[in-house]
């Protein structure tokens, strides 16, 4: 049986760049293979503080019952996660939610803002037509630019922007997206990043009348659809990010 609540052993937990970590996990039970865009809820404390689990997207599947999560150290929960040592076991719930849809197109455009690159790597890896992949990545500064090697190996074209201009173009990922999105017949966008970036990706997609799938975030308690805490506003009323999402068609979102 595929367990959704399982223990996983930490194979490694190492810095990816300052403030970002990559953790590799081996599940101690058989789990359902996650689809890129799906996520896991990790319990970081066996006591009561911090109480709630933390949500992390699948970064990459690395073989039978093994997968990786790429995370940014943000507050107390991710700090605890960053201190977990190789060999320790952690309590994981997942895979949860719906992944990115598998679609055919002339061009697949992946747009990442900061840690938003995390699920897009796994997505790119499972795509069949790597020659049709274009990556657009935005970071604050050069030292935070993660996954560049992996992206360069996979994608047909890669564009990078940093806010301070220390790497690639100076500006935001939307700036470089706007500059390079010509000839966009039969293009699909897949994006993950801060909310205001996703909103602007949606604007771009609307302007060009193309499809875009966005990985949305909201505060979560259960991850299972029971608490109704994680809703976002959509054209069909509130929807739960953990259950109907986290991947949404951009046209659905009411910003």
């Amino acid at each position, binding site marked *: 049986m595929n367990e959704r609540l399982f223990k996983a052993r930490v194979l490694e937990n190492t810095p990816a760049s300052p403030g970002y970590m990559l953790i590799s996990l081996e599940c101690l039970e058989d789990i359902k293979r996650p689809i890129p865009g799906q996520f896991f809820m990790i319990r970081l404390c066996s006591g009561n503080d911090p109480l709630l689990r933390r949500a992390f997207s699948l970064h990459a599947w690395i073989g039978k019952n093994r997968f990786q999560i790429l995370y940014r150290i943000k507050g107390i929960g991710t700090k605890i996660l960053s201190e977990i040592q190789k060999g320790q076991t952690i309590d994981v719930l997942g895979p949860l939610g719906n992944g990115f849809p598998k679609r055919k197109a002339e061009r697949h455009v992946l747009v990442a803002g900061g840690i938003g690159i995390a699920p897009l790597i796994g997505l790119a890896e499972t795509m069949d037509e790597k020659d049709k992949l274009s990556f657009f990545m935005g970071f604050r500064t050069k030292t935070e630019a993660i996954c560049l090697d992996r992206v360069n190996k996979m994608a047909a074209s890669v564009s990078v922007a940093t806010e301070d201009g220390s790497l690639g173009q100076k500006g935001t990922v939307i700036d470089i997206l706007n500059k390079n999105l010509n000839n966009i017949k039969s293009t699909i966008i897949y994006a993950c990043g801060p909310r205001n970036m996703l909103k602007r990706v949606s604007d771009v997609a609307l302007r060009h009348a193309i499809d875009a799938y966005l990985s949305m975030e909201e505060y979560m308690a259960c991850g299972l659809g029971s608490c109704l*805490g994680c809703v976002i506003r959509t054209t069909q009323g509130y929807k739960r990010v953990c259950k109907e999402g986290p991947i949404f068609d951009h046209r659905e979102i009411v910003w």
Partner: protein
Amino acid sequence: MVRVEVDIGRLHLKNPVITASGTFGYGEEYSDLVDLNRLGAIVAKGISLKPMDGNPPPRICETPCGMLNSIGLQNVGIDVFIKEKLPFLRRYDTRIIANILGNTIEEYVELAMRLDDVVDAIELNISCPNVQGGGIAFGRDLRMTEELIFSVRKAAKKTLITKLSPNVSDIGEFAKVSEASGSDALSLINTVMAMSIDIKTRRPRLFSVMGGLSGPAIRPIAVRMVWEASRVVRIPVIGMGGIMKAEDAIEFLLAGATAIAVGTANFVNPRATIEVIEGIEEFMEKGKIDNIKDLIGGLIC
């Protein structure tokens, strides 16, 4: 084998462990993680006559040893509940309790009448801190509490449970009035009104500014209130508030609760209910306590 069955009014439970309303969805969400047949009862998410949208996000935030919520009673409404949610729950060998919320006495009465034949018990939510009107507007006023319970009592035959708010100054008074107006049992506590501020943005962490605090942070308040309430009534009390494991549940039983509900713990540990049941049995076996009734109200003081 230890005996763990308890009775809540005319409702017989195979064990005293119940799910708290709003923390276990409609059961489906947990059916692959928890053997629902093992639960004493399932209390479904609060329902109203018409579907409700609930409050805008952010609706939850984490606080020390707890969380705030202002869901605002988003629910599918009674029609969908009866047509789509109940049939699923009915497949299991457990008791189903509906938690209801109205804006007026008439709405509560209509909800109770329509549910009377299809659920095993009805829990009157007069303590939701997250909706305008209805809910806590009733639960904070002794006369309205009395009138509401009295009216619903006349309309429904099933076991009637009144869910009390901790946001009152004298819980004992509300317990007594509930009993006198015809309630078969009490459920307490609902969440504690609370608030949290992001100091960087100077904004409240919840869209609705205030919300309800739940989780281990409120457990001592809940234990105290269960003790205060159970001392002044003869009807059974269902205790809840921050129960994470069996030891916490036993504390409530000793304080006077006949049954207990697991709420926020379901989010943190989806198997919490099962672990609480097993832990209570283990505690009884070790302590040579044959019948759970020997724990209930067993506080020495």
